[in-house]
């Protein structure tokens, strides 16, 4: 039996680190605002000063955005990895994030060219198209999953959809004008800075709903982890769980991608770090672990991306890749240890 005290201590440590990370992220910015002022503004609310505006409208939104991304993508990755019993599964594997990219591409390049002429993107329209794109791939993968009972085939289907959407995006890039193309490319860098309270509230709602749903499937996911036959024999409705996981993952990946752009590696890497840190596969523990560790990592990445001096902000994707890619490689090396039993 696992030592519960050990687990509580680990969670305690994570909470403390998370708190520090939040404070750190609020303090880091391209202009200097003192710690006292930050605390004062947070307590007393926004007043007329510029600093207060910056803290509430720029920094706080960015911090919350980082946390939402740090929650959403790793939860999605955790569920997908357990569903597919594959350590490399994630929102990108299923093509869901690619679907979101396709939605954005259509909106920016095709829509932008004919409908909006020389205007810039409207945030609402962009996110709508992104989620629609995500859902489109979700529907397709769902439809296939109901007919195909084999998880491996489903993974391949997801990859194929990812390829199709990526190809379509390339074709569109080829035909679009230079500035629209530029806009789309900038979007692919990923960014947490474009969040206003409107985007934050929408995303918070979606992430919260998904998180609550995830809590309800913790138990069946533990059974699914053994294998699908055993899960069925223990009373799990495998078809329903599959649908839930895909739905939750799509909403998370789709909405996050819409607002923050495609952010890579977090979905795949964090669940592994969580599994290793807590030495368990129990979703009861992992769900919270992934929420905390994902938030911490995104905040740290955000802090790092703002550090290089004056005003240059590194694209968030570059920072997450530097962290995430080594983890993915490490996963592949570790995978040799796991031999499925006959």
């Amino acid at each position, binding site marked *: 039996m696992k030592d519960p005290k050990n687990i509580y201590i680990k969670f305690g440590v994570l909470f403390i680190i998370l708190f520090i990370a939040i404070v750190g992220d609020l303090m880091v910015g*391209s202009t200097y605002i003192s710690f006292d002022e930050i605390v004062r503004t947070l307590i007393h609310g926004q007043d007329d000063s*510029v600093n207060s505006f910056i803290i509430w409208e*720029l*920094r706080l939104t960015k911090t919350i955005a980082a946390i939402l991304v740090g929650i959403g993508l790793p939860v999605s990755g955790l569920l997908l990895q357990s569903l597919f019993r594959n350590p490399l599964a994630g929102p990108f594997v299923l093509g869901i994030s690619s679907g979101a990219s396709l939605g954005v591409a259509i909106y920016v390049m095709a829509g932008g060219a004919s409908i909006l002429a020389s205007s810039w993107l409207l945030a609402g329209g962009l996110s709508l198209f992104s989620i629609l794109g995500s859902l489109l791939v979700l529907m397709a993968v769902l439809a296939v999953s109901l007919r195909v009972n084999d998880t491996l085939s489903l993974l391949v289907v997801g990859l194929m959809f990812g390829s199709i959407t990526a190809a379509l995006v390339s074709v569109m890039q080829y035909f679009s*004008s230079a500035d629209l193309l530029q806009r789309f490319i900038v979007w692919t860098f990923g*960014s947490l800075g474009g969040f*206003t309270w409107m985007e934050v509230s929408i995303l918070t709602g979606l992430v919260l709903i998904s998180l609550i749903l995830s809590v309800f499937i913790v138990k069946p996911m533990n059974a699914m982890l053994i294998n699908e036959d055993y899960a069925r024999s223990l009373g799990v409705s495998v078809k329903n769980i599959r649908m839930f996981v895909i739905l939750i993952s799509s909403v998370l990946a789709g909405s996050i991608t819409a607002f923050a752009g495609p952010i890579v590696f977090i979905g795949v890497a964090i669940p592994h770090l969580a599994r290793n840190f807590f030495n368990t596969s129990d979703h009861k523990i992992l769900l919270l672990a992934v929420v905390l560790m994902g938030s911490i990592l995104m905040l740290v990445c955000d802090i790092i991306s703002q550090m290089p001096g004056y*005003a240059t902000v590194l694209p968030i994707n570059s920072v997450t890749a530097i962290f995430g890619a080594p983890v993915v490689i490490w996963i592949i090396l570790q995978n040799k240890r796991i031999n499925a039993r006959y």
Partner: protein
Amino acid sequence: MSLINRKIVFQLLLIILGLNSCTENIKTNYNKEEVYQTKERLSLFQTKFKYIDNIEVQNFDDYKLVKIKGKTSDLKYLLFSSNSKVDTLWPKADFYVAVPVRNITTLVASSIGYADALGCLDRIKAVSKKQYIYNSVVRDRIDSGEIVELGEMQQLDYEKLLSTNPDLFIQSDYSDNFEIDNRVQKAGIPTLLFSDWKETNPLGRAEWIKLIALFVQKEEMADSIFMEIERRYLSLKDTVAMIDEQKTALLGAPYKDVWYMPAGDSYKVQLLNDAAVDYKWRTEKGNASLPLSLEVVIKNQVDADVWIECPYRTFDKLIAQDSRFSIFKAFKNKEIYHYKRQLRDDGANNYWERGVGRPDELLSDIINVFHPNKYKTEMFYYEKLK
């Protein structure tokens, strides 16, 4: 080294060494079947540049040498009359061009503005895309097929380009060392690298009209046009020179997380200086844009009086891009101006075609906006946001 690598190295060497080649390999636009209608002699006008310091024109008996100086090397154009033959005793040059050129391909918007001013729009036979061109004559000719579209710079239809067989190919120069596509080179098409955008002085930018003029043999006309522009500009500058209380300006808009602000040496800031307008970053050195975060801009420029060159034309679109723009004083006072008054439906903005060559008009617009009590006329490119 593989075959492809060798080829690339060779081409690079060619470029770096200034495209020097033996006389037999001189590629000119002279050896053509096409017979010119008039046999013009080379004009005698000596072109001089007042504000541009890296272009030099030397007149000789039967040819002119135009030298564009670069960081590591120079580009040399040898211009000769189209009714004389290439002389093997001529000095080495990168391009030998028979002037006046009759068939121009251009990807540069401002060159169209200059060509229009010089009255030689009819020489333009190929452009990038209709949606980047404001000039109605050129647009009509594209529709009728007289002018060919070649696509964006990155995705240029080289086959079409080569088939139109231009006398002169004008493209922007984004590098520091005169990079020219090797397909164009191989075909022997004289390429004019147009780097007017690098000029830090607004008048210097407009002076590039003289360079176009050299190739179409209209140097005298260009000279007088420029003198008039200069006169108007300086007179406008005088009208506001006495002003003590300078209003502050905010320019542009952020793109995703970065707000690119012109730095102190850029021509935009020069315009502001000449218009007696204060600008937070005017003491920053350099010509390149400053990549600023929204936070920094808000902190420093939230109280700017007027916001100009905003890329959105309505307040709705502006606020939809980012609701936090409402914090700016300029927003609260509705003192925001865009620069798309002369705009085609598909996005072509005359600001880039004619405006950059008419600093007097640009200055006029800025003064209009910032000193309405001193000077009030119709604006050319600026318009208040709706």
